[in-house]
């Protein structure tokens, strides 16, 4: 039994979700753009999936990004550090008719909440998980995070970080997650497309947003976002389309042996037929993993929906079981239960 919301004619606008609370992120922080994109996407999500404005719940952990629920006019709950995933899962399991959005950062999700992150990917509740990755701890003012590149100097790595970072997409896919997408705080159009795709995907939709912390890690994504280099360092993937990038879409990704390779159309006899066509829906995680792993300078970083595979959600499995037991169990209430099995009468 599908637990999808009954379609109802719903008209919503961005104004339905704007909060009267003062937004207290630093000027120039990438979070502002993400907030605007979410406000723009919620009306579309509600209209397309039949959620009224009261059906949205925004959940977060701790960190700069996690102040997000206070800045949206929805139901919302700001949890404790690292634990937004179980918080969101409890809400969704208790009421599958809600549209649950989880906002978290790289410290919240990759460090203290790493355990919950992999388990939510595995369990696949229908939750939209937006992870802001600025590769630094912002709210505690500049310590390295599990996504900080090895060698980067921060307040707690004055000689440069000694640790290998996580790639969130690899974790999602490694944990047998069914949806992974990547967006960029400086590209609102892409963010909105990706957020909508996440909402439309029935399952745990995990989105990494490369986000810039102007104060403690400014320009950390510069190689990807700079005007001069971005065309060569970004590839926006689209389902059913060849994986092309570059200023003139002259470059592409080709599978050579078991590895991806950047090729140029027309060079060394490369034609469009040689270029991989993106299929986010295949359950085979091989190419998706390679795409999620790509990073400049050797490869462009992949954006858009990298993986989107339909699979039964946790709440559907649980609630189907509830319906089944309700229909078949001879024990209908507590009185039945107490009187079942071995009992005896004292006269």
């Amino acid at each position: 039994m599908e637990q999808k919301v009954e379609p109802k004619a719903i008209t919503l606008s961005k104004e339905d979700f704007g909060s009267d609370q003062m937004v207290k992120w630093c000027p120039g922080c990438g979070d502002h753009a993400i907030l605007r994109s979410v406000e723009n996407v919620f009306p579309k999500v509600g209209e397309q999936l039949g959620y009224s404005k009261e059906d949205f719940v925004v959940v977060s952990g701790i960190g700069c990004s996690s102040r997000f629920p206070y800045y949206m006019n929805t139901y919302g709950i700001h949890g404790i550090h690292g634990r937004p995933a179980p918080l969101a899962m409890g809400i969704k399991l208790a009421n599958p008719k809600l549209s649950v959005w989880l906002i978290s950062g790289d410290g919240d999700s990759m460090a203290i909440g790493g355990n919950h992150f992999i388990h939510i990917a595995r369990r696949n509740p229908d939750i939209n998980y937006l992870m802001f990755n600025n590769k630094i701890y912002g709210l505690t003012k500049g310590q390295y995070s599990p996504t900080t590149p090895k060698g980067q100097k921060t307040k707690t790595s004055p000689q440069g970080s000694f640790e290998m970072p996580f790639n969130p997409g690899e974790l999602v896919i490694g944990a047998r997650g069914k949806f992974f997408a990547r967006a960029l705080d400086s590209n609102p159009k892409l963010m909105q497309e990706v957020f909508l795709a996440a909402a439309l995907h029935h399952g745990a939709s995990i989105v990494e947003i490369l986000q810039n912390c102007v104060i403690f890690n400014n320009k950390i994504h510069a190689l990807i976002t700079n005007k001069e280099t971005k065309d060569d360092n970004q590839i926006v993937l689209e389902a059913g389309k060849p994986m092309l990038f570059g200023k003139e879409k002259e470059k592409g990704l080709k599978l050579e042996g078991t590895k991806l390779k950047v090729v140029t159309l027309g060079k060394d006899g490369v034609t469009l037929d040689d270029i991989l066509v993106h299929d986010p829906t295949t359950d085979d995680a091989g190419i998706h993993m390679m795409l999620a792993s790509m990073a400049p300078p050797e490869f462009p970083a992949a954006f858009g929906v990298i993986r989107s595979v339909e699979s039964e959600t946790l709440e559907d499995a649980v609630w189907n079981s509830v319906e089944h037991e309700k229909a078949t169990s001879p024990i209908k209430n507590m009185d039945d239960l107490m009187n079942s099995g071995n009992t005896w009468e004292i006269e």
Partner: protein
Amino acid sequence: MKKDKVVEIEEAVVRFAGDSGDGMQLTGSLFSDSTAFAGNDFATFPDFPSEIRAPQGTVSGVSGFQIHFGHKSIYTTGDLADVLVAMNPASLIANLKWVKNDAILIVNSDEFTDKNLEKAGYLTNPLDDETLSGHLVVQVPLNTLTYEAVKELDLDNKSVMKSKNMFALGIIFYLFNRDYTKTYSFFENKFKKNPLVVEANKKVLQAGYNFAETLEVIKNTFRIEKAELEKGRYRNVTGNQATAWGLMAAAERSGRNLFLGSYPITPATDILQELAKHKQFTCITQQAEDEIAGIVSTIGASYAGSMAVTTTSGPGLSLKSEAIGLAVMTELPMVIVDVQRGGPSTGLPTKSEQSDLMQALYGRNGDAPVIVIAATSATDAFYSAYEAAKLAMEHMTPVILLTDGSIGNGSEVFKIIKTADLPPINPPIAKANDPEYKPYKRNPQTLARQWAIPGTPGLRHRLGGLEKEDITGNVSHDPLNHEKMMQLRQEKVDKVADFIPELKIDGNEGADLLVVGWGSTYGVLMTTVEEMQNEGKSVSMVQFKHIMPLPKNVREVFSKFKKIVVCENNMGQFVNYLRMQLPEFRYEQYNKVQGLPFMVSELKQKFESLLNE
């Protein structure tokens, strides 16, 4: 030889002891079922190691199950056993200190080999020397007789040996004049897929019974009259089962779905397992990836409108501390069940203790008051769990329910009630589009805020761990607001005293000694005090079930007594709490921290010495 002589007795204590793999817990629970059918009142005490299968034949691998049953109300699991079943030398050496001087010892003589004697630490065979003098020793070649009983069946060695516990059970059934055929249906259910095993168990059980009948050494059998229980329908429950049922009853009465987020931990896991069975009541159970996820998913479900529960034991409660603070701040209802075990750290996972009291009361950052109540017995766990859920929802606060290993694993006779007779539960759910709704506006009687459930039109609001502004619930760092909110959170919990029963004195006001206990010690304290009262001693008692807040009349009660002794299975946590809350009284204390319940004899000794001071 058929024995005609049946001796009528008031009560008895039987202890089954064997290797971890000998099936002693099952044997004990089957005997409990039969005791229930016989109409006796009873209480049981499983006593097993934390290893699943410790080295065979060693003392560390001994698993025991004690049952105390009788014609009168049974409040304890019994100090010393009248009958001990010892399946090998290790179980004999480990349990001899828990039997009466003239006990009946039923020993599996086949296992008293040189090798096993050595493993158990016996230098000589106790069956051949004076070690067991005074006892009635019944030597039974259990392995041989079990083989004999099933030799016609085509059964492998391992399966045969697995059924030898039923031979022992047959002997005990004979000793207490029980109908062994009542146990057949259990075999038929349990081994549905293996008719041969059903047949074997039946044969072995019957063989044990018949064998006992022919034994000359057993001169008579025993009979215990039906207990004088109130009229009605009864069943057997364990404390963990009763806890789960109390929670489900509260969900049914409140009209909320039950959500449990929990991580397996001894001795609390049974509650998760029991609730997981009852999806037909829309009972959603989530086995979390860790203790923290267990409670945090519970907070999420509570926010979404479920009657939310998490279950754990001491180490898990430690991990949940921060999240309990979030539940306090967001003022969301939930029940946190702590089935206490021996601590600190991993401690004694399968043994019982009352040492999480301070953790329950204060184990959080900031001043984070919650309601704390403690179940007083396995059957009371049903009512305590129900009350915990009722208080949580009606007062919009987390409630910590303390039970412990002895309650959780112990079983008792439970009088079946009608769910409709339980007190109603009315959570303060906010109405759609209520123009007056404010997230932190409070009911003046309870100071509870309203429960505004996501999906409800017109009530959108944000909660979180940051300090809330009074009434609006907006984030606030205002110093005076913070202080006001701290006071409100405490006052809300304090006000619960208006909604809980007063403390009841068992015995005379003004007796020379007031015995004070809390939680699971009720039965043994009650038995001791009643015995002493019957001997004419001036002793009364009170048992605390409500710890935070305390009942309103505590001061009044305490002031009636000259001497107060607080008894508990920890180093003195409740007594120190009382010293803090009611410093005007002087408290004696009696503590036992061995992972074992108090014994009537030791309590009596302590109370008598206090009376004689």
